[in-house]
């Protein structure tokens, strides 16, 4: 722990006092102050859930001058953007593990750098094949061309076209991330204006590209990749982003968009790049908490909400599970829409059709995580020990067919014997996560069912973990020898700890029926709930999952508009 402190002491911000709980270790330099008793009985606004969107939302409400309280069920903040010392000497980003979608303008506007946030770009993904070959993804275009040429000259020639097309769509969609979706059924000037904005951006691409984009948005990633590439391993490399967190296969229509969802972010303006938060993903939440507290907001942990209180069609506050009631005229739920409307709102307080929409909301668990503390650097015989790619992230997939077969297993309620794994060697890029010679690796697994026959048990969870390690050992025979500790998380653990229904990492599937003005439900896409004063700010709202802060920021803008207060939420950066 002292080791981590050495990184943070020089940067400590004078406005924050320090508190660490024994379960949570933040390596970033700003610590948040959590309280165990709400200081007041009434606030201007209460935000339920101290995930990154809840903290963003609360920070903007506080910045506008409102008296804000964030209530959190866990004894640590951050939701799925956390850093936790689950094994002594190792810091785990045990849920989300990489960062790209975080809105730069929010980062700047809330001064998150001063509050301790530093995004470290990383690159170099190696995708191993069972036959000992591999294909790597480089940041450098010429390197990428040469690498793909090893597998197929035709595919190497296609890569420029592929990247250009994908980037064109990414740049289009980026216009809409920090904006509230228009309601296409509305004649209100604001909605018509937003529709015009959207139409202009679309038409600006030119006739041909408009059609190409419509096609792209509705087709499968498999079909999309088949149009560019012939080599199985090249397609496998690029297909993986299309099903991460998604209860669909690479050949299911709609997955091309999920692919785009994973390239529309940026690191310092480099669109499509990914980075790591120094100190683990919790550094993002801690920095947001720092910004919130700087503006006078409070955070109450270990305070699970039992119900949003509604009186005469307006919300008046929340009732905690321990019986305490805290009042506020504004209540914002950062919980997923299903949980919000079926668990913490009384059926009698909301329209019956909304209840039905929430029940039908697709929030399917399809991903697992295995977080591993390693005492040495495992060998991957396909790569020489000193190869630059040894520091990147690893995938193990020869063909999209293997991925599709893993999806078939998921459909039938079991995990695959041949799971897809994305292994990020976080500590190679961020030395605050493990001591020298030690490593922390985060393994993301697709697919893992939310429910298995007979329900999840610790034994089944461990069997799932063994399947994952066995798969890694197919490519790194001595991997197992280095394991000091590992944490296995199926959707069951994710739901129970973080509160994401079915363990869905996006707070709801990213399919067209749940995107833009359909997210989370048609008619409720502008962050307003069914009763006065109640709002949503989680990833279940537009623009969806990922550590983006966009949902929380967009929601804050709408709340301030309803309160007739000046907007303090920034516009998104515009790509040149």
């Amino acid at each position: 722990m002292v080791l981590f402190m050495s990184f943070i002491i020089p940067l400590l911000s004078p406005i924050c006092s320090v508190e660490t709980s024994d379960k949570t270790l933040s390596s970033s330099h700003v610590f948040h102050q959590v309280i165990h008793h709400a200081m007041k009985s009434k606030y201007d606004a209460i935000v339920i859930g101290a995930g990154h969107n809840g903290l963003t939302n609360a920070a903007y409400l506080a910045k506008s001058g409102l008296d804000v309280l964030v209530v959190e069920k866990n004894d640590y903040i951050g939701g799925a953007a956390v850093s936790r010392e689950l094994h002594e000497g190792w810091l785990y980003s045990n849920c989300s593990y990489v960062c790209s979608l975080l809105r730069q303008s929010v980062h700047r506007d809330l001064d998150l750098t001063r509050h301790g946030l530093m995004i470290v770009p990383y690159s170099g993904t190696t995708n191993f094949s069972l036959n000992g070959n591999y294909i790597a993804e480089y940041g450098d275009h010429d390197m990428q061309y040469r690498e793909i040429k090893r597998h197929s000259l035709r595919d190497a020639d296609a890569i420029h076209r592929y990247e250009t097309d994908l980037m064109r769509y990414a740049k289009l969609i980026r216009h809409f991330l920090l904006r509230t979706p228009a309601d296409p059924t509305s004649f209100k000037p604001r909605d018509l204006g937003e529709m015009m904005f959207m139409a202009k951006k679309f038409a600006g691409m030119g006739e041909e590209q408009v059609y190409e984009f419509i096609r792209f948005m509705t087709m499968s990633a498999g079909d999309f990749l088949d149009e560019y590439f012939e080599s199985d391993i090249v397609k496998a490399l690029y297909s993986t982003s299309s099903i991460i967190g998604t209860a669909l296969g690479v050949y299911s229509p709609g997955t091309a968009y999920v692919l785009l969802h994973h390239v529309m972010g940026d690191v310092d303006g480099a669109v499509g790049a990914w980075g790591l938060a120094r100190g683990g993903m919790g550094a993002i939440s801690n920095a947001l908490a720092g910004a919130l507290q700087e503006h006078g907001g409070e955070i109450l942990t270990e305070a699970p909400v039992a119900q949003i209180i509604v009186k005469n069609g307006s919300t008046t506050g929340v009732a905690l599970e321990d019986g305490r009631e805290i009042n506020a005229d504004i209540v914002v739920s950062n919980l997923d829409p299903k949980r919000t409307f079926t668990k913490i709102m009384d059926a009698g307080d909301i329209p019956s059709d909304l209840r039905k929409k929430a029940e039908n909301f697709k929030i399917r668990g399809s991903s697992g995580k295995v977080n591993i503390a390693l005492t040495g650097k495992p060998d991957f015989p396909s790569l020489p020990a000193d190869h630059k790619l040894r520091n990147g992230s690893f995938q193990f997939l020869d063909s999209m067919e293997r991925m599709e077969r893993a999806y078939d297993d998921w459909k039938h309620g079991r995990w695959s014997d041949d799971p897809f794994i994305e292994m990020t060697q976080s500590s190679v890029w961020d030395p605050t996560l493990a001591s020298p010679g030690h490593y922390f690796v985060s393994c993301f697994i697709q697919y893992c069912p939310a429910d298995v026959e007979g329900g999840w048990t610790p034994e089944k969870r461990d069997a799932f973990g063994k399947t994952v390690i066995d798969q890694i050992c197919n490519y790194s025979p001595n991997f197992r020898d280095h394991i000091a500790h590992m944490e296995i998380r199926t959707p069951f653990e994710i739901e129970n700890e973080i509160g994401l229904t079915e363990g869905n990492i996006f707070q709801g599937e990213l399919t067209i029926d749940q995107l833009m003005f359909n997210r989370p439900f048609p008619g409720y896409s502008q962050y307003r709930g069914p009763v006065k004063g109640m709002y949503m700010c989680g990833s279940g709202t537009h623009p969806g999952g990922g550590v983006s802060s966009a949902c929380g920021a967009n929601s804050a803008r709408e709340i301030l508009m309803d309160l007739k207060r000046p907007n303090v939420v920034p516009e998104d950066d515009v790509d040149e």
Partner: protein
Amino acid sequence: MSKYDTLIIGAGHNGLACAAYLAKAGRKVLVIEANEQTGGLAATREFAPGFRASVAHTLPQLNRSLVEELELEKHGFKLAVDSMPTVAMAPGKPPITITPDSLQGASAQDSAAYQDYRRLLGKFADAINPFWKKRPPMIADGDMGDLATLGKFGWNLRRMGKDDMREMMRMIALPAQDLMDEYFDDAALKGALSWDCNVGSKLAPRSPNNAVLALLLRMSGDLTGGLPLPAGGAGSFTDALAAAARSFGVEIRCGQAVEKVLVENMSVSGVQLAGGEQILATTVISNADPKTSFLKLLGAQHLDVQFTHRINRLRNQGYVAKLHLALDGAPTFTGLDSATGRLMLTPSMKYIECAFDEAKYGGYASDLPMEVIVPSLVDNSLAPAGKHVLSANVQYAPYAVKGGWEAHREQFLANAIDTLSQYAPGIESQISAAELLTPADLEQQFNVAGGHWHHAEFAIDTWWMNRPTYGASQYKTPVAGFHLCGAGAHPGGGLMGTCGANAARAILEDR
């Protein structure tokens, strides 16, 4: 100087409908058909002595306006059944009969849900029905007509009211499974209702973005509002179309394959037949699928690279096999007095999905989802007295089956008959002849590349202004005088002649 100003390649229903409309407007039209018989996939053919069947076997999408404008009834077209019920079958369970108005044999809850489901889908169908019969618009570079089409489209959606418009924009993207699960409980009912969401495409109940659109296309017909069965097989519809076309002065030459389309100075000048004969005309309309039309008949040398790329990438591998059985007597299906409906051997959506799982990797399931009709029960012209014809669409039969269809034909047929016998015990002993048409057979016998029902996948990414692709979506192509009128154009596959009629209108307006 040529005798003709317009040549149409292929005498399928769309080629014939297009020819009839153009000749009616004064064009001198020649239709050239490679097969000996007109009708393409709709032709009624004798597959065993005395037994007749057609590949396309029902007419859900047929429009009254086309039947009336071309006076098809005068030319012999009539229906054997106006509206055939659909029957959801599951072994060991009583069947559920589905008609456009109601369910029989279903739970009270499902029956009530069906009313809501039909009301909403009916509303969606009413809103978009006019657009199936119109030229798709261009979005940015369109003319006033396109602008009017887009405006009307927006207006029709808004006119449904806020709630229904919102529901439509959400439901249009739902997979069949989620759609059915939102409304119904009974597994067999859901299986049967989900069939029309995906049949003919490489999609299954869990595939998003296609289900509702496909249902709306199926609901675009207005001849009866239900599922009509033509007397004399589907071929009687194309025979009537051919007769109508001829009555307007169309000439039809069968048994002559077009080898290539002739192009001079970026404009069409005629066609060359397989024997070398050249026929000149300034307009050539292809009823063939887009890949055959552009890559085989026209030739990529006349197209720019991007356009050729867009044609190349069209998905056109068929996944439906057609089964025709000659039966010695009427088949007996467990639980049914008479097999006069469209029998859905789809006990659940999972059953369909599992069959799809096999086909994705080039295989096929042992339990095959099927849509079965016994048309001879209501139309005695199709089989000798006392004998019967069973006609079935069988999914999923991948065009590119691993090992090739010659190696798998027997096994697939055996699987299909095994599946049938689970519902009609003893049917195997009634079979005197069987014809199995795999997608590879459809390609070879009917010149449809990939053997795909819709000529190119019917899905939202190849719909409306994206059908078959940008640059060819308004029945015109980059080569002046070369047009499309087949199922690869808007609105897509299904026996209705609408693509042909739309093409004829667009071509006439263009001049």
